[in-house]
């Protein structure tokens, strides 16, 4: 884990009102009335990547879902630019892209249709073009018109990750993004991540792989002791 806090200009690191872009404050989660984790704090500045670690069942996926506002934490809150995300979900979601365990793509649609749908449902990048995105993700050209349920798991994962390139999201939340990907695919995701960080974006991810991100600040968050 690289923990080099290279100083950067304050206006880059922090949102306009001076607080970190994204913050978890005093988070606790209980499931079936038993605590999975308590008093969890973290914060992320522009260009940083947070890797959530922990053994199976330590609540990594739930942690990401809390970050997305899908799961309600038992205590504590997530803050975006210093404000509880629940106060302005719409603004927060315009900045967020989430790729979860389930890929979130429809099997009965083609990869192109899936990405076009993603574009029209949220805030797209200006230059986003679904065909170019699929090319960038090294999906063979013949796949463009094949229904997604005929693709392999790794190919479907690539389509799902395509959403990141279609949307103009500052914060990426990725649950096991390397699953089902071949070494080439893993390298691709690493490139995407470091490119995103260099543009001042942020990412929070869980993975069991050793992530190799050149020149990025990767911070760790340990769940369950």
């Amino acid at each position: 884990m690289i923990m080099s806090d290279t100083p950067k200009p304050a206006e880059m690191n922090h949102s306009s009102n001076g607080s970190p872009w994204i913050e978890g404050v005093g988070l606790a989660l209980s499931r079936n009335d038993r605590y999975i984790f308590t008093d969890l704090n973290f914060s992320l500045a522009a260009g940083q990547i947070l890797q959530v670690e922990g053994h199976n069942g330590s609540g990594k996926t739930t942690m990401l879902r809390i970050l997305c506002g899908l799961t309600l934490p038992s205590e504590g809150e997530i803050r975006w630019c210093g404000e509880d995300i629940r106060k302005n979900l719409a603004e927060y979601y315009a900045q967020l892209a989430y790729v979860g365990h389930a890929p979130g793509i429809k099997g009965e649609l083609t990869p192109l249709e899936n990405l076009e749908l993603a574009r029209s449902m949220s805030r797209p990048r200006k230059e986003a073009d679904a065909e170019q995105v699929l090319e960038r993700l090294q999906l063979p050209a013949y796949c463009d018109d094949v229904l997604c349920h005929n693709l392999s798991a790794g190919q479907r994962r690539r389509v799902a990750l395509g959403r990141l390139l279609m949307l103009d999201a500052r914060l990426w939340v990725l649950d096991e993004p390397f699953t089902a990907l071949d070494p080439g695919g893993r390298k691709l995701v690493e490139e995407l991540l470091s490119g995103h960080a260099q543009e001042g974006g942020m990412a929070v991810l869980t993975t069991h792989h050793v992530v190799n991100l050149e020149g990025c600040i990767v911070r760790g968050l340990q769940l369950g002791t």
Partner: protein
Amino acid sequence: MSEASLGTAFISLLRRDLMLAYRHRAQMLNPLLFFVIVVSLFPLGLDPDPDLLRTIAPGVIWVAALLAAMLSLDSMFRSDFDDGSLEQLLLTPHPLPLLVLAKIVAHWLISGLPLLVLAPVLGMLLNLGSESLFPLLATLALGTPVLSLIGSIGVALTVGLRGGGVLLSLLILPLFIPVLIFAANAVGNAGAGMDITGQLAFLGSLLALAFALAPLATAAALRISLN
């Protein structure tokens, strides 16, 4: 950089659901087939006496419509839940109740509207007079959207659960009772030559109420179910 407008999102979601239904044409027809079969069972089980059939026709057609709605409702959010699309729907910057409404409209277009096409045929099978035909269509036009709207709440509450389908009928069927009462009664009264504006007005106000409140409840229920 502007985000895709709410209108675009609404239309794309609606179009997506219709396209998915189109690519699963056979599956989409099953509830309709069910509707026809249930109705045609009654003369076989009772007595093909034309007078009896005419008396029971409004109730039978409407009960069959309720059951057909139950069957088609179950799949409203199921596949979206399984493949993670539902999570993505919750994470858009648009108000969730309106996106939910797009899905409800799609559901009605797929499963409610075809009932209107089939109903005259069934009316004929059950010896329903021609004076009852328009009232039957009117009640179906006003009533089936209410079924989709109220039903969506139940589906949203049960979407992640094992055996959700049976539970869904237990939760939702009692809530359908007012629609059943007024719709079947209107058709029956029309056959007897009575005025039915009161019943239609009541169905209309039920529709307005459900239209205003059900998407809100469904959206809240979805956020809870995905917790």
